[in-house]
């Protein structure tokens, strides 16, 4: 299978928080919501936990860019509609094998976040840090 020829792709995004779904969602031709159902006693709660974006007839790089744009806009819509800020992170993607083909190109991501936070060192006895901690400016 060539990596150069345009193909159909599915990109799977996961939300950073599950969003309660009170009624229902309507998928479109290229976007399918991932719904999680939780049954407690007799009550079933539904949550949106992600979505899959299909990009047709594209090279991987173009398809990924297109899916990122769609995911970013959809993330904003979900945030605005729900009132809960979320992130949508690419979890995995794969090509859709054409008729007669069995192999597919796929990738899974271990690290969901592009922005990494961390502290290399923090010395609370450092004079500058002490000055900030003890400052009381209006």
């Amino acid at each position, binding site marked *: 299978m060539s990596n150069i020829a345009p193909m159909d792709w599915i990109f799977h995004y996961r939300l950073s928080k599950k969003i309660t779904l009170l009624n229902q969602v309507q998928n479109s031709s290229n976007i399918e919501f991932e719904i999680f159902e939780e049954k407690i006693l007799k009550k079933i709660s539904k949550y949106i936990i992600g979505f899959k974006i299909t990009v047709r007839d594209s090279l991987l790089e173009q398809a990924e860019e297109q899916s990122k744009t769609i995911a970013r806009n959809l*993330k*904003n*819509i979900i*945030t*605005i509609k*729900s*009132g*809960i*800020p979320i992130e949508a992170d690419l979890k995995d993607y794969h090509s859709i094998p054409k008729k007669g083909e069995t192999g597919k190109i796929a990738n899974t991501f271990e690290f969901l976040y592009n922005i990494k936070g961390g502290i290399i060192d923090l010395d609370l006895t450092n004079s500058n840090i002490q000055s900030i901690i003890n400052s009381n400016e*209006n």
Partner: protein
Amino acid sequence: MKTSLNYQYLSQGIFHYYNGNPADSIREAFKIVEEKNLSDNSLPNYHKYKVLRNMFSHPPPYDNSTINKFLNEFNDTSFDYNIFDCKRKIILINLESNKNIRLLNKFASELISVLRKELKLEI
């Protein structure tokens, strides 16, 4: 592109509101007001939001116009202040006071609600 940006602004406004930063929420959401040229005809409390946005975006001292607009909408008891000195053109709203947090949360929440409708994304 502009349409997409407005959704980004409102999404960020909700992010700040959710995380307990109503001042940043108002500042971010007000970008849509400017982008869409909304005014006091189409946005209730337009002048209140605008003067708050100006104060949350720039450090004092402020120009006469900003001080006067603030005094048209609010007074020395509207908020708890770190500094309220109109002669020196310094008005600093205390963003940690519970009274202010409640009031600013109300403003931010109302602004988000109006802009949701404006962007046709009501709950």
